[in-house]
């Protein structure tokens, strides 16, 4: 009986206390014909040793690719302290901090996290996390609809340079509330959204404009101009940013004259391993003005009966457990542990560390681009500034190239924009973070040259 402590003696005495003859009797309110069979299809139980062996063999199967893929998930160095602390039982096995007095640890961590994220994005406030960057954008869109008092529409300007998987998630999550994504094409030369592409919507009733920075291609958008145009037209600005990039790039709070209104993004680069796509966490910040429209948990600092500072869940009147069908979102469990790790990660890196990481990522990607574009027929797809990730045009279909590099060279060469964009079949999106070495970059170069030869 794995994980069940009851001895036969316990069971006997417990049944006696209940006044039941058997455990089965406790289920006597369930109509007999509904009772399940014996779950024959389930495998027999394993010991921890056996289950670990099964999973270890499988984990080993998937090991060994040197990762040059980014596209929304980035391999960074994570200080050992981060997860050694985050997996302490006191964080790992606590529930959502509903009993504030018995959860001051988690609550203070969240308050610190909120402060860090607000500072990183230069926004006023942050929530305690949403599921991930993509669903976070969906939440931001719904929030913008509520927050934009000037707009009655459910129309949102969505540049095609926003991560395609984010746009898919916005589709899936917002469709039921009648949200209309208006696609804005990117410039074929730069991969970015031209002011001229949004101008046609001047004066129309639009709730929000989404601005990615950097965008899916790693290209840098003209965030100031876009933000100012939006605000001039009563449109709220939703920034979607890479948090590591925030060490170097202008934060959304400083875009244009007055800054973005809502900011979301994928928190994974802040101390969360690639881990097959999750658990990551989405971060979400906004201006003070809109805080009551923000979904998710928010922690506030207050005092106890003796005047000592303490932390507690606040603004709960936005949340589903109080507001039920009128809540800002249905989100309940969020990504607490990943957020805890991120807080510890940011504390360890500090500004210097985060800047250095961002700088090395960029320098490495530049070195990578230099090496790869030295190969005949390989060239950058876009001109203009980028951060830490860029699209390359190959002389042939990038999917097969990617597969060959994985199979024969142990290299995960990047990601394939052709999966989402027509005409980009030969494009490869590559990225080299601070963990990639010069030798690995050289190895990628040689391998690609070989595959393309």
């Amino acid at each position: 009986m794995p994980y069940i402590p009851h001895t036969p003696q316990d069971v006997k005495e417990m049944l006696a206390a209940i006044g039941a003859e058997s455990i089965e009797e406790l289920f006597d309110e369930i109509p007999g014909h509904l009772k399940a069979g014996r779950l024959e299809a389930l495998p027999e139980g394993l010991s921890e040793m056996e289950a670990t062996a099964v999973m270890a063999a499988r984990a080993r199967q998937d090991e060994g690719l040197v990762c040059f893929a980014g596209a929304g998930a980035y391999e960074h160095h994570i200080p050992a302290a981060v997860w050694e602390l985050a997996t302490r039982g006191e964080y790992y096995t606590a529930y959502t901090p509903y009993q504030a007095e018995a959860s001051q640890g988690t609550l203070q961590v969240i308050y610190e996290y909120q402060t860090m994220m607000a500072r990183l994005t230069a926004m006023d406030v942050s929530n305690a996390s949403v599921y991930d960057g993509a669903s976070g954008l969906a939440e931001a869109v719904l929030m913008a609809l509520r927050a934009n008092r000037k707009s009655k529409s459910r129309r949102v300007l969505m540049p095609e340079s926003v991560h395609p998987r984010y746009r898919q998630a916005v589709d899936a999550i917002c469709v039921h509330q009648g949200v209309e994504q208006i696609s804005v094409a990117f410039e074929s030369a730069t991969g970015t959204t031209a002011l001229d592409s949004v101008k046609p919507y001047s004066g129309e009733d639009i709730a929000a404009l989404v601005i990615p920075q950097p965008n899916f291609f790693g290209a840098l958008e003209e965030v100031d101009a876009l933000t100012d145009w939006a605000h001039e037209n009563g449109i709220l600005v939703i920034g979607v940013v890479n948090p590591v990039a925030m060490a170097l790039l202008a934060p959304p709070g400083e875009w244009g004259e007055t800054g973005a209104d809502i900011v979301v993004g994928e928190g994974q680069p802040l101390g969360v391993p690639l881990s097959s796509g999750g658990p990551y966490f989405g971060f979400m910040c906004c201006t003070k003005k809109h805080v009551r429209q923000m979904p998710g948990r928010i922690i506030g600092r207050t005092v106890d009966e003796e005047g000592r500072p303490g932390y507690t869940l606040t603004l709960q009147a936005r949340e589903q457990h109080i507001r039920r069908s009128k809540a800002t979102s249905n989100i309940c469990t969020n990504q607490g542990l990943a957020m805890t790790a991120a807080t510890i990660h940011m504390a360890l890196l500090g500004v210097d560390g985060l800047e250095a990481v961002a700088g090395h990522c960029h320098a490495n990607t530049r070195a990578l681009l230099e090496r790869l574009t030295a190969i005949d027929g390989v060239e950058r797809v876009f001109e203009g500034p980028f951060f830490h990730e860029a699209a390359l045009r190959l002389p042939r279909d990038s999917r097969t190239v990617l597969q060959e590099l994985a199979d024969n060279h142990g290299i995960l060469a990047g990601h394939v924009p052709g999966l989402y964009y027509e005409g980009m079949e030969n494009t490869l999106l590559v990225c080299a973070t601070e963990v990639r070495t010069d030798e690995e970059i050289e190895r990628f170069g040689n391998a690609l040259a070989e595959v393309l030869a």
Partner: protein
Amino acid sequence: MSGEQLIFELSRSGRRAYAQAPKPVDDKHLSDLPAKLRRKERPGLPEVSELQVVRHYTRLSQKNFAIDKQFYPLGSCTMKYNPRGANRAAMLPGFLGRHPLAPESHSQGYLACLYELQEILHEVTGMAGVSLAPMAGAQGEFSGVAMIRAYHQARGDDGRNEILIPEAAHGTNPATASMCGYRVREVPVGKDGDVDLEALREACGPQTAGLMMTNPSTCGVFERRIEEIAAAVHEAGGLLYYDGANLNAILGKVRPGDMGFDVIHMNLHKTFATPHGGGGPGAGPVGVSERLKPYMPTPVVTRDGDTYRWVDTDEIPDSIGHLSAFQGNAGVLLRAYFYARVLGREGMIRVGEYSTLAANYLLRRLESVGCRAAYPDRRASHEFIISFSREAKETDVHAMDIAKRLLDYNQHAPTAYFPLLVPECFLIEPTETETREALDEFVEAMGEILREARESPELVKGAPYTQPVRRLDDVRAAKQLDLTWSE
């Protein structure tokens, strides 16, 4: 325990965790970044040493209650033991290092685990199809209701704009219905904890898209007339949504698929013992009946011979789509897979049995020290409700006071004031992983507190006394918003 400063207060200009800060990058490597896109002021992250960080977050951790330290009988939350073996297995380098966009050829180990987890969930729920995509219970709910909507729409059955929800339901249920564009109609619950069948029948109609319910309900009892309910909704053309947060109670005993549900979400962070992490992450896979299979959220995993692969919207064109950038909370799924493999067939059945045994035992024992069950004539499922309305009336000691006082007894408080329909209530869920002695200790503490409530109510109302802080001023927290720290 003394107050712990904020990490920002520990910060000193120029201090650093040097081992974590790579050498600064030569500016020439950043020369291509246009000045106007660069950040002007550096973000104010803390400047602290590595020891300070370790010490700070170690100390903070100790201000939490946690299953690893205390009995944590939070009703509806299934705070059971989170196997450490699952953590180790899920954190194997091969899993942690895998990029979500790695080719399937290099993801066979991972995909095999997911596929088998799908199969296991398929078997324990009796549903026809399973998608692991949703990242928590609420997202599972969302998927479920979105599928119901897609189903009606595909049939051109557009008039259905209402979701029925028993009043005892968890807040995520109505919130989800709203997110999916539905109106919510609450259905009353009878004195015995079962849904008022007459009222339900009356509420059903051509506007009914579906019913969301939990069984056992959050009243802690098994809905005995579940088949009549299913029939009523189905006859009206609606579909049945099963909120699987309480699956622990019936694991191996009844299968939602057999009860007639069309869609169910599971909280793996409850029933499958993955940790709650102080507020997540979780995972909320959905199981669907045959008719909802075309709408499942993507991706799901399938097997062709010996190889596994993703099935995406190209193969499930009517899918409600992608709910995340990648494939959901992989690490949580791996932990759940580990747990399921260790439990196996026999173990899975025992979960429902022993969590039910523990709940019924605890209920009777609590009654013996003066607690009053909300549904005294019913079997408890894996959880049950007691109410302190008499105490509130007679001594002005409220459920919240008792909850706080429990902390002084080193017991985490049960869920309080939920479900809303029972006044001054506790929803108590002991789970199958706590020893009988742990249950007895809780009973003893409750007995003591009830005595205190009678003899010195002020003592109870002033609790807690032994925690890092006394009771917090929530009103001030909401009024004088202090959400980020500034010097």
